[in-house]
């Protein structure tokens, strides 16, 4: 794990969660760990923010949740992407791409 882990960029946590869940349903810790792994440890997710964000996304109708047994037979809350969540992921991805290219252009021009 890298020593230089960073907090998730403001406003992108929702997108990262949606993206992670688009692969398979996961519980809270799993989502956090997955984000860290995929980002190769660049992003570190604060458990408080993560669990609160999950509630928010569920309340918005983008996630479903259910309590299930894990492999080591403990009850855990698993989150799953809904159809609306999928659509939202597309919207946010497109939006993000637009921003990134804009920033990239700005940085290029400025140099």
């Amino acid at each position, binding site marked *: 794990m890298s020593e230089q882990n960073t907090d998730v960029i403001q406003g992108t946590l929702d997108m990262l969660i949606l993206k992670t869940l688009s692969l398979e349903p996961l*519980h*809270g*810790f*799993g989502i*956090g*760990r997955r984000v860290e792994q995929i980002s190769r440890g660049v992003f570190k997710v*604060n*458990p*408080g923010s993560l*669990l*609160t964000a999950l*509630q*928010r996304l569920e*309340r*918005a*109708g983008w996630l479903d949740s259910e*309590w299930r047994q894990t492999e*080591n037979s*403990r*009850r*855990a*809350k698993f989150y799953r992407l809904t159809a609306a969540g999928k659509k939202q992921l597309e919207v946010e991805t497109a939006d993000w791409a637009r921003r990134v290219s804009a920033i990239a252009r700005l940085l290029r021009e400025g140099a």
Partner: protein
Amino acid sequence: MSLWRQLTHGLRGLAHRKQRDGEADDEVLHYLEEATAAWKSRGLSDEEAKRAARLEVGNITAVEEEVRSYGWENKVRTFVSDLRFAARQLRNHPGFTVVCILTLALGIGASTAIFSAINPILFKPLPYPHPGRVLMIWCTSQGSRWEVSFGSYRELAARSHSFDATAIFEPWQPALTGASQPERLEGQSVSAEFFRVLGVAPVLGRDFLASEDTFNGPRVVILSDSIWHRVFHGDPAILGRAVRLSDDNYTVVGVMPRDFENVLAPRAEVWTPAQYDPRQLVTDLNGWGWGEHLRMVGRLKAGVSRRQATQELSKIASTPWPQFPRPRWASLRRGLIVDSLQDDIAHTVKPALLAVLGAVILLLAIAWVNVVNLVLARGSQRREEFAVRGALGASKGRIIRQLITENLLLAWFGGMAGVIVAFAGLRALVALSPAELPRTDVMAIDPAALFFALAVTAMVGIAAGLIPAIHISRGEMQAGLQQNSRRTAGGRGSTRRALVVIEVALAFILLVSAGLLLRSMRRLLAVNPGFDPSHLLTMQVATSGHQFDNVVSAPGAGARAGDRARRRFYEQALDAVRHVPGVEQAAFTSLLPLSDDPPVDALYGAQFEDQSGDTGENVFRYAISPEYCETMGIPLLSGRFLDERDTGSSPQVALISESLAKSHFGHASPLGKRLHVGPRNRPWYTVAGVVGDVKQTSLTINQSDAVYLSSEQTWFADDRLSFVIRTSGESAALAPAIERAIWSVDKNQPVVRVMTMEHMIAGTEAERRFVLILFEAFGLVAVVLAAVGMYGLLSGNVAERTREMGVRAALGASRGDILSLILRDGMRLTLFGIMIGLCGGIAATQAIATLLFGTSPLDPIAWAGVVAMLAGVSAIACWAPAWRASRVDPAITLRAQ
């Protein structure tokens, strides 16, 4: 959709709170377990993995709290639990709570009640269309308002172009006979355009016509809604009906609307045209039309300013036209006073009202300061509590929210109690209010004023609660925890000390004002009215009916038949009264001193034989029965009283007052000198005696020139006399028997204003007394609040400095030393407060100087008394905490740390 989901999820969350919280906790715990497992799988031991996981997750409770608190429903929950906690806090500190709520209630209630009472008089527009355009027009006498004559009114109305309508009016008190007891109605005799000036029209029927306001015109009357219901049972067919008033039939032509508020005569129930004769103005300069006993109003034309109108009127006053001859007294050369109706009705009470308003603002300020002080004290006592809660994971925002909730709850209770105080206070105000206070019928709690007081109070409460909260930055919370070990002198809340000083200063200002007013009242009540008011009953009897009419067309003595009938009635009535058991002496007079008899009606020019031309003085003319001076207890200084010998056929004699005798004759004897009173074409009156001076219109005014004539020797018989009756026992109890005695002579003559003389005198100073009562009440509350503030401050100090006291005691300080240490501290603050109060008081007492009587605004006794009182009260407030400090047992306190 999302909103709907928010709502349903939120409500479900509220309904299944336990389950929802459990799930949130479970999720966090699961996260922790997974993290631990993950660390373990990397090869850490059980213990190390747990530690690492905890580090990763952070404060478990805080995370749980964060996760749980998502969603609007949790805001509600937090608020509810904050509220419950706040309520518990308040309940656990009943002293603090009760004092705060009472303080707020008094502040809010008193200020709202006072403002609600003053608002309609000084600020709220009168209930007429374009009320700013209604003006009152007065003549001037010695710089003050003086009634106008019909002649002056007619000239002003004819020559001025500034007004849409102008009118004159005067009181009219017809007797309503036919019922079981004769009733004297309050009414107004008005010129035709009176209601048009006010901009109000009858709701039933019509207004007066110009043709009805002519000499010997038809007798018509407009009724008020109240008398229409009270006497005529709201009869819709009242129009055109005849009503018997003072022995004449009047045709009802209109009924005024229920909401018509007549600020010019609040109790008037009937109106009739004045019917003056303009032709007589030119032919008879001594006639009734030139008597100055009318009030004049006008409604400005749109676009004409009051200034323009005033200028036009004063130009008319200074340039007489030959077609409008003016007698000497109505020459208008002293100019006119023009004022808006609103200012006019308030002008006598305005200084008093503004003083009361100022006092209540001071009181409100003291209440606020007191509450801020108490809340601050609570805050500093609770520093430890906040520190502990902070250490246990409560965020700064959370603690502030809790504090605000507590203060809002306190403000809410205080506000509710304040509303109650406001309603009760306003009722008490209206009940206490002097008769001169206009518009008491429409005084109601002003919602805007109440809201304002509540809002400001809530804001003050929140601000006061926030001050300790702002101190609680993370670092200071820790300091709060450590404070236990170093709680000594230093940092003793300089804000709160300053607040106590302010409280003392404000209380001082209020108290000095109250003290000065009290001294004035003492002075006033010590004033000798010139007669003995004890055991003296008074009542007014007016004659009404055609048997008292003078038949002008009848020749010779027949012309005065009405006067004779009137005199006969009064003599018989007096005789009957004298025979009532318990009556020691009885008499009547045309003018009763210190009553509401209009003094203008009794003022006449007097001229002694050695005076010539236009010289002379204005004197009060009393037409009296024999024994009047004896009954009143007016002393005889020389000569003799009037008695049964002075009849219509005997030589005309007069008594004059001491001041008149002195001013005209100096040390020479006036006995036997001759004078005219009123008309000069009648025989001379010879001075038969000199009597003591009497306060005529007010205890505060020295207007004592008076001439007493026998009622049988005056040039007209007064139609309204006051009986004065000296009784052996309780005089008020005799009133019914005396009324019956008068009615046994003629049951159709109304008897009004039945009152003991003492009561009547109290009434003349009602306005002053009203202001005094308010200032006394406010001053008292202010002292109590200041004392509470002082006590609270010092108690807090002593509690915080217990250890210091212990150390001092251990080092050899005696109990007396410690006692005086705390006492000195408190008294120093008091002294500061008094010094500031002295400066403020000098300014404030100048403002109430007009309300004082015989007392300088710098009256040393009042000032010294207040200084002593405040110092004494605050010494008492300091004593308890100081005593507690001196009892600190060093062994116990030092061990306790």
